[in-house]
């Protein structure tokens, strides 16, 4: 295999190819597409969190001029399709799958009841207002004691606990029985979500004569969605083309299969015209996956010198009203990542998945990890304080050493095999972070009141995995003009794939970036693909590109051998030419021109299979000042250190790290999906759902290390898209805890909003008075 990275593209901070169109307003997002004759859809959504549907009064809406059709459950062929599980496909989840439209019951505010198709979105919304909704309310299930009220989302199951999973390593009962010191705490991460700047959208074009569908607006996992939709619509997969256009951010929530992914194509079939649906922001906040709503009681056993001997965790995830395509990842990953990069032989984890009358939950960047790291690292700081050990020293004692890797934590989830941390030098990353934040130097101001504010520094270490298998594909095609288009099963979500995959292909073939066009757009270009999630676009997608490039090189040489009449062994591919030892050469354009009309272009498929994810890791540190009167936390400095194995494009890696970090800070201080006790969503606009702006966190830096290559892929890359986020709550929680140590105020629940911090301080004050 040609050594990877020999061409100088990999590892270079090359300006992105995709920027040209974004900077000039020529991006094509799904809302920008126009098909003549298209109609517009709006979705009627349940205003009630839990109830039995009695009737929908449609007459007035149907009579509104400009309304073409109203689709309800009555129009959908039975059985009403349910959204399949893509990840964590446990049989326990089967009773809790979401029907693509509410038929007899509604189970969350925002659940689709009907689709209006009209001449314009304005008219469709006018029609929504005319529909009379009659729903008999049922008691909503809103908090974690889900079975105590006697109200069940799915009466047939007789419970709102969808999953109970238990994992155990070593002998935790013995460890706890014998421990010199134990501590137990309860923690909570709050419900929030990704909120990308572009809402979801679909443009469905049904071709009745061919029984074919073109669906624009796909993202992330278009091949899975195509398969699911083909089954639901009873059509062969080849009749469906799911086309990805430019996408305004994904972060995990965009691209999963949602009810609209069936309803809009169905509507197009009903009206016989293209149908366009663009989610508005109010809908988005109640209809697109929520996440992070996880709590845990965690208990630790230690020796007095700080050596951890046991860990117990009772973790629960509030799943919302249905288990959608990947909801199961959230609580199971929280259970799995509770241990983190630490040496703990005796572990006992229970994970519950709880159903409530809220928007269904799915993965959001670093799912389960953001939560679990917060729970564990907060407990560690409390323990370190009890044992009078410096928090950094506590971590040094327990952080896995390189000579202990690979380190297995056993089978920690119901659906994945044994998890093994592969390569890494956790201590070097840790010490680098401490140096960057000046941990030693700041010891003097820890917890001090300076100019009316309490100062504190906190740290947190993490492991993160990425590059899920089982495979990814690529297709290299030699175009007529001698350029090379590379189709990838990976999806473009804003992470710069058009550039980074071209860097990989360029180095593999010794060609410049401009020789390639990365094509991710359509399921018709590739037979199959897995998509972009779990940081896999480079690890698995990029490796598939390497394989494809090698096969392409072989195919070029083969073709040239025939054209030049020389044996393969005499030929090599260099500088865009196939060159023979004799000096004869042939260009890509010539090879392309030599194809017979019936042959089609020269094309090869690449594939990369991987069973095991790879593990990135690192440490973050934060320096904060807390105003005790207002509860405001100012972030004075933040350093994020992560080993990414290999950075294909350091500028892009840094962009991901900082972006993830700021999104994580939003998740600590601002983002919050708030429900009332009737399970009504109170934060359904950007006036109430708050996110970071340019003035909130100006002082941040990230350091991407290339300490240890990943053994799972030829690039040696570890994941770089999510690591920046996973320890943020832990780090900030510890910094605030350190700052407020003297007041006895210790954060255990997110978000760390000003009222929460203030209450922590003042409740503690009242308690001790």
């Amino acid at each position, binding site marked *: 295999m040609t050594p990877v990275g020999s061409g100088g593209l990999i590892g270079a901070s090359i300006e992105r190819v995709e920027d040209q169109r974004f900077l000039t307003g020529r991006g094509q997002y799904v809302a920008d597409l126009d098909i003549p004759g298209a109609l517009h859809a709006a979705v009627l959504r349940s205003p009630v969190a839990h109830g039995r549907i009695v009737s929908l009064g449609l007459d007035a809406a149907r009579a509104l001029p400009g309304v073409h059709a109203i689709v309800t459950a009555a129009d959908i062929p039975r059985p009403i399709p349910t959204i399949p599980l893509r990840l964590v496909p446990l049989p326990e989840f089967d009773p809790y799958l979401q029907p693509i439209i509410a038929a007899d019951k509604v189970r969350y505010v925002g659940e689709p009841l009907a689709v209006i198709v009209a001449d314009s979105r304005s008219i469709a919304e006018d029609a929504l207002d005319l529909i009379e909704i009659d729903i008999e309310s049922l008691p909503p299930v809103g908090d974690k004691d889900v079975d105590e009220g006697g109200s069940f989302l799915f009466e047939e199951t007789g419970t709102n606990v969808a999953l109970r999973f238990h994992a155990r390593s070593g002998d935790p009962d013995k460890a706890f029985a014998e421990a010199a010191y134990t501590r137990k705490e309860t923690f909570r991460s709050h419900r929030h979500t990704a909120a990308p700047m572009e809402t979801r959208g679909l443009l469905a074009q049904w071709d009745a004569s061919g029984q074919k569908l073109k669906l624009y607006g796909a993202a992330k996992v278009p091949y899975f969605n195509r398969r699911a939709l083909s089954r639901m619509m009873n059509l062969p997969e080849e009749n469906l083309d799911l086309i990805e256009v430019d996408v305004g951010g994904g972060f995990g929530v965009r691209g999963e299969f949602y009810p609209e992914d069936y309803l809009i194509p169905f509507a197009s079939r009903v009206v016989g015209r293209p149908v366009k649906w663009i989610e508005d922001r109010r809908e988005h906040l109640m209809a697109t996956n929520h996440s992070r709503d996880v709590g845990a009681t965690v208990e630790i056993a230690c020796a007095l010198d700080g050596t951890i001997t046991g860990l117990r965790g009772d973790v629960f995830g509030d799943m919302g009203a249905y288990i959608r395509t990947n909801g199961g990842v959230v609580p199971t990953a929280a259970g799995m990542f509770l241990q983190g990069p630490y040496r703990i032989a005796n572990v006992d984890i229970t994970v519950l998945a709880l159903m409530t009358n809220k928007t269904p939950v799915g993965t959001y960047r670093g799912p389960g990890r953001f939560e679990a790291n917060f729970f564990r690292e907060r407990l560690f700081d409390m323990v370190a304080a009890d044992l009078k050990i410096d928090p950094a020293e506590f971590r040094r004692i327990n952080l896995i050493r390189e000579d202990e890797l690979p380190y297995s934590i056993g089978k920690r989830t119901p659906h994945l095999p044994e998890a093994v941390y592969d390569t890494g030098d956790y201590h070097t990353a840790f010490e680098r972070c401490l140096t960057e934040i000046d941990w030693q130097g700041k010891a003097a101001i820890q917890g001090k009141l300076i*100019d009316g504010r309490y100062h504190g520094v906190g740290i947190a270490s993490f492991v993160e995995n990425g590059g899920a298998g089982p495979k990814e594909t690529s297709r290299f095609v030699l175009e007529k003009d001698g350029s090379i288009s590379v189709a990838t099963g990976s999806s473009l979500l804003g992470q710069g794939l058009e550039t980074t995959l071209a860097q990989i292909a360029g180095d593999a073939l010794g060609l410049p970036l401009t020789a390639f066009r990365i094509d991710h757009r359509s399921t018709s270009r590739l037979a199959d693909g897995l998509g972009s999630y779990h940081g896999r676009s480079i690890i698995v997608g990029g490796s598939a590109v390497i394989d494809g490039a090698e096969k392409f090189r072989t195919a070029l040489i083969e073709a040239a051998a025939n054209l030049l009449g020389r044996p393969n062994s005499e030929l090599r591919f260099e500088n865009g030419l196939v060159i023979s030892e004799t000096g004869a050469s042939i260009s890509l354009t010539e090879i392309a021109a030599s194809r017979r009309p019936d042959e089609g272009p020269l094309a090869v498929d690449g594939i990369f299979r991987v069973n095991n994810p790879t593990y990135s890791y690192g440490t973050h540190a934060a320096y904060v000042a807390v105003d005790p009167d207002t509860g405001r936390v100012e972030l004075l400095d933040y350093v994020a250190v992560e080993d990414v194995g290999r950075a294909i494009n350091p500028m892009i890696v840094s962009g991901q790290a900082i972006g993830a970090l700021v999104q994580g800070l939003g998740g600590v201080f*601002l983002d919050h999906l708030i429900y009332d006790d009737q399970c009504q969503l109170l934060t359904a606009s950007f006036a*109430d759902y708050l996110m970071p702006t340019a003035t*909130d966190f100006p002082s941040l830096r990230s350091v991407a290390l290339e300490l240890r290559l990943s053994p799972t892929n030829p690039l040696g890359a570890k994941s770089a898209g999510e690591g920046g986020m996973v320890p943020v709550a832990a780090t900030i929680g510890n910094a605030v805890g350190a700052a407020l140590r003297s007041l006895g105020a210790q954060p255990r629940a997110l978000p760390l909003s000003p009222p929460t911090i*203030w209450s922590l301080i003042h409740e503690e004050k009242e308690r001790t008075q």
Partner: protein
Amino acid sequence: MKLPDVDYIRPKTLKEALDLLSAHGDDAKLIAGGQSLMPMLAFRLLAPKILIDIGGLSELRGIEITDTGVRLGARTTWHDIERHPSLKTAHPLLAAAIAHVAHYQIRNRGTAGGSLAHCDPVAEFPTMVLTCEAEVVVAGQDGERVMIASDFVLGPMTTALPADEIITAIRFPVWPKARRWGFEEFARRRGDFAMAAAAIFYDLDGEQRAVDPHMGIIGDADGARRLTEVEDLLAGQRITRTLIAEARALAERSTTPSEDIHAPAPYRRALIGTMVERALAASAGINLATAAA
């Protein structure tokens, strides 16, 4: 979130605007900058039949600074205020409060008159109008009249502006150069609505005692209000650390804090107290963070 079905008209003169208002009555809503009204239409919280755009009325523009005070035409934007070369000196409290309003793009279009008519309890301008005892000039079919702030600002989202009248100007009394003042606001992020705010001003007599203090707050359940109890406490007194602490405690007792998903009542009460304390300290040049000398 498309706008409801609505018509639109743009009168060229104030008289035309008033005639239209009279003709359409409750079916009409005035639109100036639209920065508060448009989101309400997008959420379909309102569904007027016709919008009357007063954006073309030049008689409502203009900032005048004279020896009787500062006159803001109703269509004065926040950027007009920010960019005015002498307004910061002529009325530093107003300038300080307005600096907190919204964001750059909104500041180009949001108007003083629009903000006052909307009377959002967490907006800065209506509270400044009330605190400074500004006068509101209102035009109707019978001509212009002047209303005093406390008659005009009635409560959250509520003013005394009749449906067929238009605010034409807001007049702030003249600001003596030696006047002491302070403005403190707490918002979640830069440009967000205030969670709580306090504005204070007073003059000093020969003995450095506060004369005729005015204190207004944002964060009370009754909307923009003056804390007259605290004003009475401060009147005739030197502003010392001790008095500031008393004023803070009294402010916390005197307010009925508003409660919402962003701030529960006990927190907001304390926050109002903190804003009062810090505004007073600023007015007196006292640094609360350092121990008393």
